[in-house]
C-alpha cells in the first residue's frame, strides 16, 4: 500500500524566487502531519502543489499513490481540501453548502442525503442544517468547511491554518473535530499551522519549513529532545545570601542563571535533577523557596533553534480574509 503522501525533491519557482526548494518527505497513513513555518516559508505553495492548484517546477509528489501532475483529477477525487479562508456561501444553508459540493464531487444522488446527514452529525451541526451559514460563529463555519471537505469520502484531508482567527474554545473544538473525523473516516491529515502549542498537542509528526526548505521533521517529542537545554526553572527566594546566584549556577545540569538572588531563571538540560539539587542547596544555606515553576522546552524553542528566528517576525502577505474585508469596505 502506498504512503498517504510521498513528496520527492519538489521545487516551485516564481520567476527568480524559489518558494519551495527541494523538499522531500513521506506522510504515513492515518497520521496527523503538521507543516510548521512562518508566512512566506513555502507551506501554502507546498500544500497548493499537493492539492493540484499549482504545478511543481520540478520533482514529484504522489497522494495516495497518484501523481499530482500526471493525474490531477485522480488526486482531486481522493483529497479533501479545507482552505484557510472561510469560503462557504454565507447566503446558503449549511445543508445547501454541502449539497453543492456533493454534486461537484459527483456523489451519487441516492447517497447524498445520508452522507450529508452523517457528516453533519460528525461535526455536530445537525440542528443547524437549514440555517444560513452567515448565522453561524467562526468555529461553526470552520466545522461546516470540514464537513464540506469530507463530502466525497476522501482518504487524505488537507487543512490550511484550520484554527487561525478562532477563539481558544473554538480552536480546541475544531481540533477535537479533526481528530474525531480522522478516526471515523480513517483519514490521513496534512495541515499547516503557526500555533506551536496546537502542533505540539495534536500532530503525530511535524515538518518545520523555512525559506522553502525542510529544516526538521519528527514527532513533537523527539524534536524537543533534539535541541540542547530542555527546561527552564523560575523560582523566587527568601533570605538568600549574596552569592546565591553563583551557588545556583554551580548546581548539576545548570547551563545559565539569569535574574537575581530573589527571582532567578535557571536554564538546565535536566529539570528534575536541578530542582532536587536546588532544594538541597536552599535547605543547607537556610534559604526559603517562595515560588517555583518548571517549564519544558516548547516547539517555539525548537523553531528558533532550527530557523534562527521567531515565528512572529515574518512580514505578512495580506491574507484572503484581509482582502475580503477590503472588499466589504468597498475599497
Amino acid at each position: 500500500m502506498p504512503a498517504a503522501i510521498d513528496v520527492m525533491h519538489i521545487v516551485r519557482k516564481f520567476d527568480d524566487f524559489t518558494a519551495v526548494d527541494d523538499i522531500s518527505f513521506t506522510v504515513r497513513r492515518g497520521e496527523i502531519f503538521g507543516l510548521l513555518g512562518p508566512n512566506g516559508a513555502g507551506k501554502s505553495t507546498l500544500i497548493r502543489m499537493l492539492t493540484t492548484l499549482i504545478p511543481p517546477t520540478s520533482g514529484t509528489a504522489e497522494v495516495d499513490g497518484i501523481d499530482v501532475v500526471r493525474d490531477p483529477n485522480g488526486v482531486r477525487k481522493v483529497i479533501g481540501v479545507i482552505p484557510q479562508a472561510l469560503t462557504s456561501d454565507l447566503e446558503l444553508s449549511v445543508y445547501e453548502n454541502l449539497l453543492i459540493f456533493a454534486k461537484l464531487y459527483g456523489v451519487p444522488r441516492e447517497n447524498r442525503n445520508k452522507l450529508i446527514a452523517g457528516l453533519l452529525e460528525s461535526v455536530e451541526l445537525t440542528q443547524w442544517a437549514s440555517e444560513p451559514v452567515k448565522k453561524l460563529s467562526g468555529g461553526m463555519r470552520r466545522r461546516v468547511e470540514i464537513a464540506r471537505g469530507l463530502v466525497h469520502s476522501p482518504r487524505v484531508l488537507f487543512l490550511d491554518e484550520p484554527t487561525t482567527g478562532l477563539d481558544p474554545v473554538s480552536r480546541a473544538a475544531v481540533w477535537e473535530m479533526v481528530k474525531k473525523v480522522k478516526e471515523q473516516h480513517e483519514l490521513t491529515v496534512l495541515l499547516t499551522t503557526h500555533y506551536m502549542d496546537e502542533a505540539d498537542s495534536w500532530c503525530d509528526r511535524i515538518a518545520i519549513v523555512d525559506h522553502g526548505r525542510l529544516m526538521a521533521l519528527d514527532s513533537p517529542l523527539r524534536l524537543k529532545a533534539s535541541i540542547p537545554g530542555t527546561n527552564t526553572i523560575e523560582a523566587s527566594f527568601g533570605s538568600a545570601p549574596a552569592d546565591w546566584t553563583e551557588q545556583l549556577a554551580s548546581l548539576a545540569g545548570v547551563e545559565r542563571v539569569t535574574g537575581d538572588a530573589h527571582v532567578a531563571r535557571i536554564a538546565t538540560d535536566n529539570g528534575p535533577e536541578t530542582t532536587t539539587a536546588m532544594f538541597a542547596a536552599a535547605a543547607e544555606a537556610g534559604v526559603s523557596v517562595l515560588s517555583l515553576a518548571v517549564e519544558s522546552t516548547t516547539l517555539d524553542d525548537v523553531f528558533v533553534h532550527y530557523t534562527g528566528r521567531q515565528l512572529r517576525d515574518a512580514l505578512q502577505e495580506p491574507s484572503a480574509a484581509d482582502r475580503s474585508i477590503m472588499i466589504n469596505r468597498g475599497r
Partner: protein
Amino acid sequence: MHRTWAIIERELRRFRRSPMLIVMSLVMPIVQLIVLGYAFGGQVKHLRVGLVDQDHGVPAVRLHELSNAVASNAQTFTPQMYNDLGTALGDLRNGRLNGVLAIPPDFSRRMLVGSNPRVALIEDNTDNFVSASLAGAYSGLITSYNQPVASGQRTGTQTSLDVVEMYPYVPYIQYLLPGSIVMSIFMMVMIGGGIIFVDDKARGLHEGYLVTPITRLELILGFNLSGAIKAVLAGLVLMTIGSLIAGVPNPFEPLRLLRMFVVIVVTAVALVSMMFLFMVRVNDPLIPRATFGVLNTFLYFPSGAVYPTQAFPGWMRAISKIDPFTYAVHALKSLVLKNTGFGAIGLDLLFLALFSLASMTLATKLFRRTL
C-alpha cells in the same frame, strides 16, 4: 480640531496610495464629457433612401439629379434606385432603408400640364431624429426644385411633398426602452459576471472549485451559463415592466414576446462572454468596480439607444460597429417599435452570436484551471 486633521491626513494618505481610484475618478467624467458630448445633437447623416421612379420623364430625372447633388454635398442621405415600390417598402419595413421617395407615374404629365404634381416620402418614423432630418432634407430639396431656373423654361408649377409615416408616433420613452432592456442585461452581467466573479476569486471561493474533479469546460460553462440565466431574467423583467411603463401597444403579443426572448437570450450570452473575457485574468476586486462606469458609457451611448448612430462622428460610429449593444438595441427596436419578424434582425443575431463565439474562444484560452 487635531483629531479632525488626523482623519483628513489619514484619508489623504490613503487616497494618494490608491492611484487606480485617482485615475478612475478623473477618467470617468472625461469619458462622459466626450462620449455624451458627441452622442447627442449631432447632425444626422448617411441615411439610406430608396428612390422609386415610376415616371422616368425629364422632370423626374431632374429630381434624381437634384437628390444626388444633395446627397453628395450635405450627405444627409444616400439615394438608392429601386425598380418597384413593393421591394423598396419591404426594405423600409425591415430597416434596411430609412425612407422611400416615390415619384408617381403621372408626375411628368402633371408637371407639364401644371396640375399639382406630387412626390411622396414614406418614412420609417420610429426614430424621430432620423425622420425629422429626412423630412427636413427633402422639403428643402423640393423647395429648391421649385425655384425657377435661369432659362425660364419652367411654368411656375409647384411640386408638393407628401410625407407619409409608416408607424404610429413613437414617444421617446418607447424609443429608450430597448436600450434599457439591454442595460438591465448588462448590469446583471457586470454585477454577477464582473464584480461577484472577481470577489469570489479574491476570497478564495474559486479554489474550492479547483480542488474538485471538475473539468475546465464544465467550470467555464458553469460560470457563464449561470451569469446568462441571471441576465436573461433581468432582461425579461425589464421587458415586461418597461413595456407597461412606456405604454408599448399590445405589450403581450405572444409572437413578439417570443422573438424578444430570443434576442434577450442571445444578448445575455454575448455580454456574459464579453465580461468573462474582460475578467478572466483579473484578481483585484477594485478593477470591475472601477471600470463599471466607463464600460457602461462606452457601450450604452454609442449604441444608438438614446440617439441615432447616424448622427455620431466617425470614431463613435466605429465604436458602435463593434459594440454588441448596438446590435441588441437595433434588434429590440425593430421588435418593440416596428413589430418586425426575424428577417429584420437576422444580421443582429448573427453578429451577437459571432461576437459571443469570438469572446468565449479567447476567454477560454486565457482561463487557467490552476491558480
